[in-house]
């Protein structure tokens, strides 16, 4: 059974909150991850993506490849916000 977007978004929000020492309620789907007004620095972002890689493998049964050049060509849209990353991970699940 696939995991819902809401559940994946909750995971991403909690992970970002933990990495940035914020309350989870202060992080929402519009919270920016890259570009102006981002709340994570490069080290936090790397750790978020490593965590997401494991989460995707273990909970979603899919592969989240963020280290290849092709993945990075989409990174700007995928990593724009908590919501866009959660949507991308959710959609990686096998049909």
């Amino acid at each position, binding site marked *: 059974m696939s995991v819902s977007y809401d559940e994946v978004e909750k995971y991403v929000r909690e992970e970002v909150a933990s990495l940035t020492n914020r309350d989870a309620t202060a992080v929402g789907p519009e919270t920016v991850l890259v570009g102006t007004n981002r709340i994570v620095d*490069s*080290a936090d*972002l*790397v*750790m978020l*993506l*490593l965590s997401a890689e494991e989460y995707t493998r273990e909970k979603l049964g899919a592969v989240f490849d*963020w*280290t*290849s*050049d092709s*993945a*990075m060509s989409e*990174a700007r849209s995928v990593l724009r916000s908590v919501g866009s990353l959660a949507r991308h991970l959710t959609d990686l699940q096998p049909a």
Partner: protein
Amino acid sequence: MRILEGLGSRNAGNHEPFLIGPGGTLSFSDVSRSAGDHAGDLSRVRPGDVVALIGDFDGPTIAAMLRLLDAGVILMPLTAGTRADHDYFFEAGRAEWVIDGGRLERRNVAGVASVPLIDELKARRHPGIIFFSSGTTGRPKAILHDFNNFLARYAVPRPPLRALNFLLFDHAGGINTMLHTMFNGGVVIVPSERTPETIGADMAAHAVELLPATPTFLRMMLLSGVFDSTAFPALRVVTYGTERMDQGTLDRLCARLPTVDFRQTYGLSELGVFQVRSKARDSLWMGIGGKGIETRVVDGVLQIRSENRMLGYMNAPSPFEDGWYDTGDIVEQDGDFVKVVGRAHEILNVGGLKILPGEIERVALLEPDVLRAKAYGVANPITGQHIEVICESRPGAELDRRRLMAHFRAHLQKQLSPHRVIIGEVPVSHRFKQK
């Protein structure tokens, strides 16, 4: 110099065993006798032939080794533990003969091109010895020495000691321990197994005075409790080398064995073993010297020029520039002393910030439940590299990733803290070094 004759004259009248091992004892007169065991076979070997000798520090192997070197061959000492790589070693070192289990067999080398370094050694009419690098940066390299140069270091007599030969028969350090002890009238104790408990039992039973070991193995001995449960009244010196020691382990060893002198060794198969003096028993600072040895530090990296350096690699370009060898060891300097802090090719670069894996591993070992740690870089498109570290727990302890992450963050700046902590086993090589 003929080695058997030299050893015989130095030890004339000495009928005491110079080697004690699981297979029994061995004296110089035994060696002279057992050297004849292979007489029929070994007479087929010609000076300058490359002979792979598979064995350990036992009577027949040592006798064959000395006899072969006296016959002017180029010896390739190997152990059964690396059998999976033997075909590669034979090819890389151009072995023409293999002695395994006491049987001599000729390899078919028809059509194999001659090697200029071997031709050079043959022209000198000198015996040779081939060691293999550990191959951390590619396949192992075949390191060819003129054995007469290798022997030169034993010309100066040193105090005889009862030494446990921890290092293996295929390691320059193991051969050095054996020859050093033989030439100086000491006794070599060959352990029956290389486990902390067995080594401890052998040390106590045979009143071992000198224990040469790797930092990895000394950590295993500390962990096993051998130093708590067994007294070693004869033990005078522990030497450590072949990989980087950390200050925490050295401090624990010094506290556990307060009357023992701890000395760092430093050697490279390409250059031989040097005379090294530690600044103090609890210090990682060392002075490197000896006859024909020069050192310098270029861009933080230690370079050494040695009169007794290898002739060259048989399967790779020469690493020497005007005789200088770049050790790849990053060192700090304090007058004549240096301290190795990492390896040049291992520098991690995270978004332009640089750190050595050794620094990460040092911090990992500050956590009491961490037995071993291995840090490395992984390429990524955001920061260029990020840092991952494998932490192995002490038996009975449970490591928690989040707690370890917090531990690293408390000791390292954020950007250089490991980005991923993996709880798992850190591989250890057959030479008891971290892979």
